[in-house]
């Protein structure tokens, strides 16, 4: 065949060859089919470990009870029992880590406004009226669970005052101390 017909073919093949060669060097070794099938499972295996190593922020009530037993017990017997402590108190992150090793400074991820220091990192509790209104503002939705919530009309109920002035958030049946 004529050279001018074959020439683009060789150039094309050369480019394909270069791409494959570059891929051999640039693609990580653990790239492959690791998932449940070939269509969706092709990925870099160490990416799984990257996600497993992501730091946990919300530790959960079981972690709070280790030190704050009294508050957790009071709260667990109240209508607010289903609410996690950290919903109002903020994510604990490594709030309690320094109990065991007080010399370790807190290296907090970008959560809240926790500056690094030694010792127990105080959590900033959210006592705002807006937090309570998330559930307890009257909207009038008769066939939704929201309609079953004990609720107030924001405009008429003790305007602009914090709920915790009168109500105890740990045990809303009781008045605030």
């Amino acid at each position, binding site marked *: 065949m004529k050279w001018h017909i074959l020439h683009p073919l060789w150039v094309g093949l050369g480019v394909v060859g270069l791409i494959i060669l570059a891929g051999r060097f640039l693609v990580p070794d653990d790239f492959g089919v690791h998932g449940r099938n070939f269509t969706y499972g*092709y*990925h*870099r295996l160490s990416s799984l470990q990257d996600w497993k190593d*992501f730091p*946990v922020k919300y530790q959960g009530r079981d972690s709070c009870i280790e030190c704050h037993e009294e508050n957790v017990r009071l709260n667990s017997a109240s209508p607010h029992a289903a609410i996690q402590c950290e*919903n109002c108190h903020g994510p604990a992150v490594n709030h309690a880590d320094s109990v065991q090793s007080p010399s370790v400074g807190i290296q907090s991820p970008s959560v809240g406004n926790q500056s690094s220091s030694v010792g127990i990192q105080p959590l900033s509790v959210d006592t705002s009226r807006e937090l309570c209104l*998330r559930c307890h503002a009257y909207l009038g939705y008769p066939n939704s669970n929201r309609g079953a919530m004990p609720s107030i009309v924001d405009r008429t109920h003790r305007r602009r005052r914090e709920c915790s002035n009168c109500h105890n958030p740990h045990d809303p049946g009781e008045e605030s101390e």
Partner: protein
Amino acid sequence: MTCSRRDFLKEAVGTTAAAVLPSAAFVLLSTDEARAAVANSKVRYAFLIDTNKCVGCGMCVRACKNENEVPYDAPVTRNWVERYIFTKDGKIHIDSPKGGRDGFTDNNMYGEEIDPDDIAKAFFVPKGCNHCDNPPCVQVCPVGATYQTNEGVVLVDRDWCMGCAYCIMACPFGARYFHPVHKVADKCTFCYHRLNKGLAPACVQSCAFGARRFANLRDPDDPVTKIITTQRVAVLKDLYGTKPHAFYLGLDHDVR
């Protein structure tokens, strides 16, 4: 047609090279390797969302943003809560201000104040990634940066994603977004880091009403799996054929 020995050899070598070169791009697996690659996992995670229970407090959105370091004030979120209000004049009002991050504390929708007496029905629908069995977002990724794990969780490899945003376009649920800090596609990870430490996903843990729950569908004794397998559940956008694995109780047909 005549053909010299020299031409014959040239073309033979060229043709062989052309045939062999592309095959270098493929990886050959042994039978055992291939079987292991598609082996059924003992775990398949799924969400169960009860729209009857949701009160629209938005704590799931806030917890997700804090837990997963999603920029708090940027207009992006991995999960969200939608509000549907059907007024007696037949109109449907739908909103989700800031993804419901700050809850729903009044009936002001896009500047229009809705009188509670005009409401025929109203409810909240928590949404997020459905961790589909046939995830279209994974199909379209040109570089293999997003994938499905053995547990059915769809993840993004932040080191490998180049930010082309095909997957964001491909997701029919709008569950993906472009991460403004990492400059990659981002989505719900089912709190993969928490699951692996035996913790519930942040949205599930923070929900005080049990509206968001999760299940291992391969475990027949899982109480949430029992609900999914024995009660009437629905999924969003069934007709897309993506086989979503976020199951809904009490889903209205007007919810899209």
